């Protein structure tokens, strides 16, 4: 799925300016615990989380993730948006809770693991 399609599927707002809309996102993981994202997530290109702090962007960077979706109406800070833009990571915010946001994307074909 393209970033714009992801945002559309979860009524999300894209918060970063410089994302690459040609990226085809195929897999994701959902977690609030970054320790687990790093320990258990494999080749996922997207992270869904309700956690707000700069280390969420850092974790995504280390994990080669290209998109972060913030759920439950959580909004990242300006400094997180700047950091994400610097790292080429797209940030999306949605009002849906974690389970529902994940479910809506799963329904559209996003898998639990796979290639970027």
């Amino acid at each position: 799925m393209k970033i714009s399609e992801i945002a559309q599927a979860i009524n999300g707002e894209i918060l970063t300016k410089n994302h690459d809309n040609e990226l085809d996102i195929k897999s994701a993981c959902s977690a609030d615990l970054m320790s687990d994202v790093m320990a258990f997530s494999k080749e996922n290109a997207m992270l869904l989380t309700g956690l707000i702090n700069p280390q969420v962007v850092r974790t995504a960077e280390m994990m080669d993730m290209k998109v972060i979706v913030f759920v439950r109406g959580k909004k990242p800070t300006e400094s997180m948006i700047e950091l994400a833009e610097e790292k080429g990571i797209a940030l999306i915010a949605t009002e849906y809770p974690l389970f529902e946001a994940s479910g809506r994307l799963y329904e559209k074909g996003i898998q639990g693991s796979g290639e970027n």
Partner: protein
Amino acid sequence: MKKAVIVRDYTIPANDFTIAGEASSNVRKILTQLGVSPNVVKRASIAMYEAEINAVIHGKGGNAHVEIDENKIYIVISDEGPGIADLELAMQEGYSTAPDSIREMGFGAGMGLSNMKKHADILDIDTEVNRGTTVHITVYFNSDKKI
């Protein structure tokens, strides 16, 4: 040992969660620019980032020293924190002494050391109670270790 081609030293600031990971991010960029394979870049960055986060959480900050030659990256993260009393226990998944404030930040699940071991080709930990901890991480560029 062959002469290191690139050497970098970083200061890891104490208790500053906002900039924790800056050193790992920088090293990641260098490895990517050198054309190191994405799997190796990812493994080295995750292992270093976990060590860096640990130094911030437990070690009151510290230092990162990185040597890159044509075959490998060697990372040393050292702190002068409380040290690890029982290393074998600390290596177990899920064992953590991190305070609640760190858990609220999404870390401190007790996965860091075991995750470093999983991603590194060689992991050596020198630790002494009340003296500090030094973590040595080596990742070989031709290593086919999968994560």
